[in-house]
């Protein structure tokens, strides 16, 4: 199928949702406009929120930047620690034996479960949230890197060995490139998890950010601003994973026809 046709279908799909939304709100007035504002009202709130700081103490932009900063900080920390750790665990039996039991114990704790402890330790500032995001980002990074390395084909390792590859060359020139698609899918899962954990953390303990903005507007009954915040979270999340997709295409070669 042509790319332009695919794009057209996507555009029509989004347009129909907006149209349906408009019909049941401003069109047929099925709901009170206070509880379920129309797309037009939400767009107005969006434009308004670009400059106005009431009722949540910041413009849309300041909340977005606050959220992005803390999310990316925690996310990158998760990658930088999680990916090498997962690779090491898969490649060195001893590291696996030492780290695996600890990891298996910590892993079932949902990231949001760390929030109370983090508030107690470092307050409700950015670092508490960054830690919570780190916890949610690091797990998929470890799991996927580990699995990816473990799934390296035996024949590929044989080939490398018959060419006289050292163990280090086998890791860097065979196992890691072969695990790369799996590692990238971990990075994607991780990104989604970070973004979700961020919003949860901001709703529970924060002074700014998109999650905080949603929570504040619930208290004052501004459904339009809530929807603006939600849509912002959706759009930015989609953009971030699209960027990651581009990075993946740059690094992962030869896997798609």
């Amino acid at each position, binding site marked *: 199928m042509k790319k332009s046709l695919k794009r057209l279908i996507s555009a029509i799909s989004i347009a129909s949702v907006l149209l349906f939304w408009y019909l049941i709100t401003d069109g047929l007035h099925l709901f009170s406009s206070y509880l379920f504002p129309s797309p037009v009202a939400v767009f107005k709130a969006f434009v308004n929120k670009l400059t106005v700081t009431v009722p949540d103490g910041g413009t849309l932009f300041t909340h977005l930047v606050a959220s992005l900063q803390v999310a990316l900080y925690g996310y990158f920390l998760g990658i930088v620690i999680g990916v090498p750790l997962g690779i090491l665990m898969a490649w060195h039996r001893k590291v696996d034996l030492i780290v695996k039991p600890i990891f298996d114990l910590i892993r079932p704790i949902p990231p949001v479960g760390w929030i109370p402890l983090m508030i107690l330790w470092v307050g409700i500032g950015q670092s508490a949230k960054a830690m919570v995001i780190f916890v949610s980002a690091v797990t998929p990074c470890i799991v996927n890197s580990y699995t990816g390395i473990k799934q390296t084909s035996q024949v590929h390792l*044989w080939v490398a060995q018959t060419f006289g590859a050292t163990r280090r060359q086998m890791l860097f*020139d*065979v196992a890691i490139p072969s695990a790369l698609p799996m590692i990238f899918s971990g990075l994607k899962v991780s990104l989604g998890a970070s973004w979700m954990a961020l919003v949860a953390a901001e709703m529970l303990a924060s002074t700014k950010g998109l999650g905080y903005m949603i929570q504040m507007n619930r208290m004052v009954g501004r459904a339009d601003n809530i929807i603006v915040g939600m849509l912002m979270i959706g759009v930015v999340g989609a953009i971030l994973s699209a960027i990651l997709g581009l990075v993946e295409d740059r690094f992962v070669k030869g*896997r798609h026809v």
Partner: protein
Amino acid sequence: MSKEMIVCKGISKSFPGANGSTLEVLKDISLSINENEFVVVLGPGQCGKTTLINLIAGLEMPTSGNVTVAGNPITKPNPDIGVVYQKTALFPWLSVQSNVGFGPMMKGMKKDERKKIVQHYIDLVGLTGFEKSYPIKLSGGMRQRVGIARAYCNNPSVLLMDEPFGHLDAQTRYLMQEEVVRIWEADKKTILFVTNNVEEAVYLADRIIVLSNCPTHIVTEFDVTLPRPRDYVSRDFLSLRKTVNDSLERTR
């Protein structure tokens, strides 16, 4: 008198099986292959052939007996012994030229140094123009050409080929058989080629070694003196094909 290149003396290999039993895969195999000889190992069953390749390549150790290549005992993999596998052995994340240049890269050869010899072997196997393609874009026959070029590019004196054409369609298989003889004649190596296809064995070999099914041992040997290029339907070819075929065990 030509030089003995690969010598296996009484090698056996067993693997631990279920509930503490042992599975004997190779039993007392002794063979000797001369320099630049093209030997086909013909085996009917599913067992033993890849293990034999892996033992000669030094990827596994025999339970008893020993292997020498060019007089040196084999205890670990050695760049002087190249291996071409049945399938999926190309690195999907590398282009054709990077796959072919993998051996020299492991030796630490610089990229611009590699380029010339890589191109030589890509041309030799007839893949000129596909240097930058990834394996996923290539047909089965082309992938095996890359596999052969990759093994050749490291300039080993011994080439082990483990049913390299087993997954190709019949037409491509005939073509690749012609190609492998052409490449071997252009750049002589000692080749040990494993197959379960009698016609392929008769077409390729200077000598055919017939194996039994599990545990694998040597049943008999045939010298093939038909002149090359061989004709698949000449009377001599067909009669040898029948003789070899009759020597195979009937297995279900």
